């Protein structure tokens, strides 16, 4: 057994883990960004001279790029520095580096920026005061448009017993990783090198190489320990600026965002408006119309993907004979939309689950029974026509229902118990590879990801390797290499790490066994074991130390085998797609949550007294790590539910760019939840595991909203459920 449930506990508790923020180098310069003072406008002039005049300062702006960046490359809104149009407040316009941090800040302030401000587009709804009409798609402010339809929607609405229409609004939320984005860059002998706190070293390499117009082979990205990612550290952010400054100065350059900048120019979930129209016939869903306006900020990475994927979660895991969905991604003067743990799915689940509650109430059916009657079962069809694979949601719902009945029997006045559901899919992404090195006394798993905190790399992959090889965990080490040495992997995101790299480990293990079988001329399967401190290959009655099976050239490397996994997904019925892109799921992961809340009717303040999660996991790979993911996601979801809201002024300035005004949950506000892991419904990962980083956050805001309504009758249709919104909803009763 390893000494702690966390393999990285000792190094982190000793203060010896070096994060991106902790990097330095001899002769290092400190970088800082010069950013746009307004959210929209024309850049009239940018004068770097006053910064250049300061001692030891290097400054770069748009004029320093053309040699690197052919204008044909990339979209204008992905440009390193804008040359004309300012797209959002705090957009980087130039960058400086100086021998001290204070010097860099002074230099950044010395750069003279002159802009002609123009009115910013901030409020998503101001562009189409009614709702986007048929011509809206041609608007330059529409970044994405998706439309799908199936069944006799019009007929179902015509003959419905009841139609329920509602509009929901959700707020922008930040990831709030405790460590800001930070990196250390250098350029030497034509090699661009950056050490950075990232969820995806290979993603950063691809991203930065294309932004700078350099070949990927000349750029080496090395991950550091990561002080929280949650989606915010997937793509590059500070790296290209640090590299350009390093090239211009000939010195290593550290560039870290201030925590304020982290809020102001970090990329995350932005606001949305969701409209439902639901037709019910004889107590069942007959048809549904769902419309989505999603704020894409100044550019919506993934465009149709982001919008089309979100729509899945507005339809939810429910049988729907007929539906029509339409989604718009809208350009506003905010930083580009970016991923935030299960991007936008908690917001979708909040709207959908609250709406289903409303529908059930409208037809006087118990909301739990209404969900149970509609929730997908194995073999059902998703709205877009994909077969639903093994899905533990019904089991989770049953268990949640039983617990909720127990809790309801125990609560007092002013308290309520809510249940809500969520679903997700393991995104095995663009794939990944591992290299196994079997040495006489240990098995090394060489791969490209650093541990970002979820445990998926150091605990998850080690557990997969132990299970695949049969070796005890203390014989397995997880090794990491920079992008010049490690096999490719697309990143720690999308709940994919254990799924994709785990499958690659299983494949590589099979290859190790085959090689050993050849060398042993085995007629029976080969297993691995440990004898007196050495790893041995076992077949039938034969036990041979690995040491004796290695070839001379394998003395250093051990026996090497590689494995890879690239996503294999199901398919959707394309005839249901009218326009845009919709995607199939890799697998089906369900969650059912139960919350007990107490609400103060005068102040609107909500106390979460008890919380429970029933999580479909496929199979448990590492129990403590799995539980920890669920616990952490619940707390993060409580922030989305109750307090977290990015607020922009009419001019497009973020008004709460700090932890004192943007409040995330503290210890006293989060109950220790009861976590139940549900096995038996295998997913896309090794041994049938399902990804777990994201799913448990999805039902949280919905569960709280339903519980608040149970406690008070207040039907809040906006996130977060701030005290003010609850009081306002109570007044409407």
């Amino acid at each position, binding site marked *: 057994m390893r000494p702690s449930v966390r393999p990285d506990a000792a190094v*982190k508790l000793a203060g010896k883990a070096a994060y991106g923020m902790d990097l330095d180098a001899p002769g290092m310069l400190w970088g800082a960004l010069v950013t746009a003072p307004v959210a929209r406008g024309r850049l009239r002039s940018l004068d770097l001279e006053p910064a250049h005049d300061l001692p030891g300062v290097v400054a770069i702006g748009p004029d320093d790029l053309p040699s690197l960046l052919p204008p044909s490359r990339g979209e204008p809104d992905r440009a390193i520095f804008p040359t004309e149009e300012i797209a959002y407040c705090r957009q980087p316009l130039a960058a400086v580096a100086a021998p001290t941090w204070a010097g860099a800040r002074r230099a950044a302030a010395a750069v003279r920026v002159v802009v002609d401000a123009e009115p910013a587009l901030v409020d998503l709804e101001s562009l189409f005061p009614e709702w986007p009409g048929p011509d809206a798609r041609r608007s330059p402010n529409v970044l994405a448009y998706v439309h799908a339809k199936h069944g006799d929607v019009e007929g179902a609405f015509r003959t419905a017993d009841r139609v329920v229409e509602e509009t929901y609004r959700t707020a922008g939320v930040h990831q709030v990783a405790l460590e800001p984005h930070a990196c250390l860059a250098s350029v030497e002998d034509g090699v661009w090198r950056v050490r950075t706190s990232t969820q995806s070293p290979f993603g950063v390499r691809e991203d930065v190489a294309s932004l700078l117009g350099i070949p990927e082979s000349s750029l080496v990205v090395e991950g550091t320990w990561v002080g929280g990612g949650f989606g915010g550290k997937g793509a590059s952010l500070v790296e290209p600026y640090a590299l350009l400054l390093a090239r211009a100065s000939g010195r290593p350059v550290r560039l870290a965002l201030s925590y304020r900048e982290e809020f102001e120019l970090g990329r995350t979930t932005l606001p949305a408006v969701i409209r439902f129209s639901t037709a019910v016939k004889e107590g069942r869903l007959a048809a549904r119309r769902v419309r989505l306006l999603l704020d894409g900020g100044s550019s919506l990475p993934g465009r149709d993907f982001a919008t089309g994927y979100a729509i899945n979660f507005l339809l939810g895991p429910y049988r729907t004979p007929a539906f029509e969905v339409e989604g718009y991604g809208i350009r506003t003067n905010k930083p580009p939309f970016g991923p935030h743990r299960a991007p936008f799915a908690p917001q979708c689940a909040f709207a959908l689950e609250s709406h289903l509650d409303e529908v059930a109430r409208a037809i006087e059916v118990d909301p739990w029974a209404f969900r149970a009657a509609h929730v997908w079962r194995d073999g059902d069809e998703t709205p877009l026509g994909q077969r639903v694979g093994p899905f533990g949601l019904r089991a989770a719902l049953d268990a949640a229902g039983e617990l909720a009945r127990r809790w309801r029997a125990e609560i007092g006045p002013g308290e309520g118990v809510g249940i809500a559901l969520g679903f997700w899919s393991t995104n095995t992404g663009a794939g990944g590879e591992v290299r196994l090195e079997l040495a006489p006394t240990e098995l090394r798993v060489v791969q490209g990801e650093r541990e970002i905190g979820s445990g998926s790399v150091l605990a998850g992959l080690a557990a997969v390797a132990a299970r695949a090889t049969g070796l005890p965990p203390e014989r397995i080490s997880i090794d990491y290499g920079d992008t010049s040495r490690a096999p490719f992997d697309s990143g720690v995101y999308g709940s994919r790490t254990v799924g994709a790299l785990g499958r690659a480990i299983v494949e590589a293990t099979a290859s190790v066994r085959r090689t050993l079988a050849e060398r042993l001329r085995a007629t029976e399967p080969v297993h691995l074991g440990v004898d007196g401190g050495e790893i041995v290959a076992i077949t039938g009655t034969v036990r041979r130390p690995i040491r004796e099976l290695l070839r001379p050239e394998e003395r250093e490397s051990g026996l090497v085998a590689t494995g890879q996994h690239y996503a294999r997904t199901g398919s959707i019925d394309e005839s249901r797609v009218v326009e845009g892109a919709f995607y199939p799921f890799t697998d089906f992961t369900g969650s059912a949550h139960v919350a007990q809340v107490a609400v103060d009717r005068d102040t609107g303040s909500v106390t979460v007294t008890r919380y429970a999660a029933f999580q479909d996991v496929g199979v448990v790979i590492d129990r403590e790590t799995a539980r920890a993911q669920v616990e952490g996601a619940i707390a993060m979801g409580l922030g989305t539910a109750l307090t977290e809201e990015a607020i922009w002024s009419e001019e497009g300035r973020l008004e709460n760019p700090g932890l004192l005004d943007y409040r995330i949950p503290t*210890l006293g506000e989060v109950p220790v939840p009861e976590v139940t892991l549900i096995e038996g419904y295998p997913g896309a990962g090794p041994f049938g595991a399902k990804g777990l980083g994201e799913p448990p956050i999805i039902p949280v805001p919905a569960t709280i909203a339903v519980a608040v309504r149970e406690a008070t009758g207040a039907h809040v249709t906006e996130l977060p459920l701030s005290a003010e919104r609850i009081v306002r909803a109570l007044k409407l009763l």
Partner: protein
Amino acid sequence: MSRPIELRLNGRPATIPDVPDDERLLDTLRWRLDLKGTKEGCRTGGCGACTVLVDGRSILACLALTREVEGTAVTTIEGSASDPDLARVRAAFEKVGALQCGYCTPGFVMTLGGLLKEIGRSAPIDQFLRGLDGNLCRCTGYASIVRAVAEMREPGP
């Protein structure tokens, strides 16, 4: 203006030359003394990641000026192994696995170490938990941290 500052650092006397008057303790520790176990998060007193002990009491190093701690005993996570209270907190966190990314962890250890010194090992658990309201953790949901606090306490009367 800058001048040398004398203090005890992780149990040893230390003189830090040329500390500017407006330098924050956090920056002195991290960039002058290379003690980067003390984490820099918000720099505005909002996250607790930078917590260190000054004469046994926890303070936020991002809000303290280095010259304000002149003559005191400063303890950081790097000195935690030789302090019995801090070592006790670390052992509990390690056993329970009360961390994920670990960026908040040194701050939690220092705050809890300060609390152990202040209220003793068998104080009611709620006193410890209330004392952690200035330490944010985005990863764990605090559940494992609560388990670690229970582990770290001595069962009281």
